């Protein structure tokens, strides 16, 4: 057992209101520069829809992620090392700017400097890459937001094409939800593996995947190899850039900007411990449906004394171990098993997981005039509403509807249980038992998912403490410290979640 720690995120899709605050704050912090106009480290897609870049899930086209060879080994989908190096002069799998969208701005000056006259001055759109005026803007960020233009756009969703055209895109007949996306900081990152210059790396301490800007040479192989299309090419600097998981904030114990500013309070951040020796095996299991359970099994329970001992032996500090024990992410992924990985079939072992939305099911039940919190109705609907379930399964479990149904049942059970509580009735213990949890567990899950206190959502051990000790020495006094002899570290509040 080789224990490694990973900062991970879980997003509770039921609570995303599609406000794009996360995207905007992220962009203001990270990609409001020349060369990154079209880049959104965080973006929120409406599903069903094409996403950003358009049809990014179509790996037959972009060749992102890994594939399993017949001999059971993993190979990048774009081919072996020699093959990819031979296509380095022009990457056949690289999305073009049009697949994202051509960034533009307006000629605002013509508004303020127009001479007085009878005609209303207009500001024309100008391309930010070519500098030429654009006659019609035909695609942009979130062009198909809230199923806008769905009859035309949504059938091009690769998942819709897999599930089949049975999904109807008529008002009141379609289901819809939002999918916020950031880099997955994968355990088996395809981007890092495809980088010819070795500029991309995974940090050993927290698993954050970064691009060393001084070492990147602009071979742009990572861009196409990331199946989630979360590495972007800065066309002004000639370097790849990607979501940094806001590491300067995490190192100080603060949540990422997208999480901190999330209006729906639907993001969770915490530590996951995993067995590095099992990563390769988990990513290479034969049946795609086994990828989710295999990754689940590669995670380690920090409350297990043997794991804790092995973690200490691997150099994981007590602060991190403590955070791992209180990790909300661990609880959602492992304890309650309500979070699922995004597209496990790409075999990168992603580390941003999602609690699937129950709302398409609840809405459908409510639309038929029934009670959306009735256990029988909800469970029945999960069984009969094949389309949303199959669609979610294509998204989160490589098409295995069983796991999605199990999660949705737990969510439904929580809903029904809490309604009884709120009405002062005694909850039916059979409901909790039916999803193999206890009533107390359902209530704990409710506190985490629905009440979602700030200190419960983010449990972030800082790197700064360890750094300060490394820099100052264990007992070096901080020059601004009050008590002599005792180091006063940066103003870091202790991680806040009650011990679990």
């Amino acid at each position, binding site marked *: 057992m080789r224990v490694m720690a990973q900062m991970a995120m879980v997003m509770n899709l039921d609570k995303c209101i599609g406000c794009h605050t996360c995207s905007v704050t992220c962009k203001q912090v990270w990609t409001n*520069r020349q060369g990154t106009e079209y880049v959104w480290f965080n973006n929120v897609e409406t599903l069903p829809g094409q996403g950003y870049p358009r049809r990014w899930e179509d790996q037959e086209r972009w060749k992102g992620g890994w594939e399993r060879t017949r001999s059971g080994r993993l190979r990048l989908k774009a081919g072996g090392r020699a093959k990819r190096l031979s296509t380095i*002069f*022009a990457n056949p799998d690289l999305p073009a700017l049009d697949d994202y969208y051509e960034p533009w701005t307006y000629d605002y000056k013509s508004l303020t400097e127009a001479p007085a006259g009878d005609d209303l001055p207009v500001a024309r759109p100008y391309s930010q890459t070519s*500098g030429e005026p654009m006659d019609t803007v035909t695609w942009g960020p979130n062009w198909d937001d809230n199923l806008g233009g769905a009859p035309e756009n949504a059938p091009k969703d690769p998942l819709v094409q897999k599930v089949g055209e049975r999904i109807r895109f008529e008002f009141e007949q379609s289901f819809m939800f939002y999918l916020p996306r950031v880099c997955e900081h994968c355990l088996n990152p395809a981007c890092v593996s495809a980088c*010819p*210059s070795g500029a991309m790396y995974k940090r050993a301490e927290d698993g954050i995947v970064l691009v060393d*800007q*001084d070492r990147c040479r602009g071979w742009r192989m990572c861009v196409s190899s990331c199946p989630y299309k979360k590495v972007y090419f800065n066309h002004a600097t000639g*370097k790849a850039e990607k979501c940094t998981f806001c590491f300067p904030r995490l190192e100080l114990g603060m949540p990422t900007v997208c999480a901190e500013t999330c209006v729906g309070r639907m993001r969770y951040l915490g530590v996951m411990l995993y067995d590095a020796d099992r990563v390769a095996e988990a990513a290479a299991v034969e049946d795609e449906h086994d990828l989710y359970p295999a990754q689940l099994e590669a995670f380690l329970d920090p409350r297990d004394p043997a794991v804790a001992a092995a973690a200490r032996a691997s150099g994981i500090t007590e602060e991190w171990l403590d955070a791992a024990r209180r990790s909300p992410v661990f609880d959602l992924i492992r304890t309650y098993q309500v979070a699922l990985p995004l597209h496990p079939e790409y075999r990168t072992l992603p580390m941003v997981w999602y609690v699937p939305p129950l709302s398409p099911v609840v809405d459908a039940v409510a639309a038929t005039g029934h009670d959306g919190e009735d256990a029988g109705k909800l469970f029945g609907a999960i069984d009969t509403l094949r389309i949303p379930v199959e669609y979610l399964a294509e998204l989160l479990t490589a098409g295995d509807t069983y796991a999605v149904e199990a999660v949705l049942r737990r969510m439904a059970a929580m809903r029904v249980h809490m309604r009884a509580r709120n009405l002062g009735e005694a909850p039916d213990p059979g409901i909790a038992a039916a999803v193999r949890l206890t009533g107390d567990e359902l209530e704990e899950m409710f506190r985490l998912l629905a009440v979602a206190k700030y200190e419960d959502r983010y449990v972030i051990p800082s790197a700064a403490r360890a750094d300060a000790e*490394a820099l100052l020495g264990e007992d070096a006094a901080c020059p601004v410290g009050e008590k002599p002899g005792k180091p006063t570290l940066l103003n870091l509040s202790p991680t806040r979640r009650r011990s679990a």
Partner: protein
Amino acid sequence: MDLLLWGVLPYVVLVLLVAGAIWRGRYDRYGISTHSSQLHESRMLRIGSPLFHFGMAFVVVGHVVGLLIPQSWTDAVGVDDHTYHLLAVSTGAVAGVAAVAGIGILVYRRLKVPAVRRAGLRSDRLMYGVLIGAMLLGLTATILNSAGATGDYDYREGISVWFRSLFAFRPDYALMADTPLAFQLHILFGFALITLIPYSRLIHMFTAPVRYLFRPYVVYRRRDPRRQAQRPLRRGWERVR
């Protein structure tokens, strides 16, 4: 004059190349990139770039063979002059024409596609000029030479011998005095191109990712707070204005 051009200049070029490469490696790693423009335009690039690069690879190999391998060696293994030149000119012509066609497509694209033109570097104009100049002069010299317009000049007894004498630090510059003009110009453009390598996008050729073939897929690195605390301020993302 001959001494300056063929006896001193080569060493000046070498010093500028090495000094520039060291300077970039130490102080401007951030600036080293292919500055790929594939995001803006892919169709022409996918033809032009491989054509140019593969052509160029053969051209470079051809130059190395032609300049470094003495005639006595090929004679010794029984390759006579005629066969040698037939081989050299035929493979050289294919590679040379491919490279020229490739760079033609690339330059056309750079001029015609607005986004690609805007993405160009300041050093690009000079670099493309010198590169194309050197390539066209090289082809001209070869054509003239094969057509017999340069008398019975054999570069393997002239330029190559001079080139190898450079490494012994006893440049045989007199040998270059009666080299045909086309070859002389080609060499001067070549000098300019080599000098430009570290100061233009051409630096990317020195960072060719050969080690990729031998390293494990996933790279792990540890933070080193000591190193981060002392990181000097170098060129990087633009400052906020």
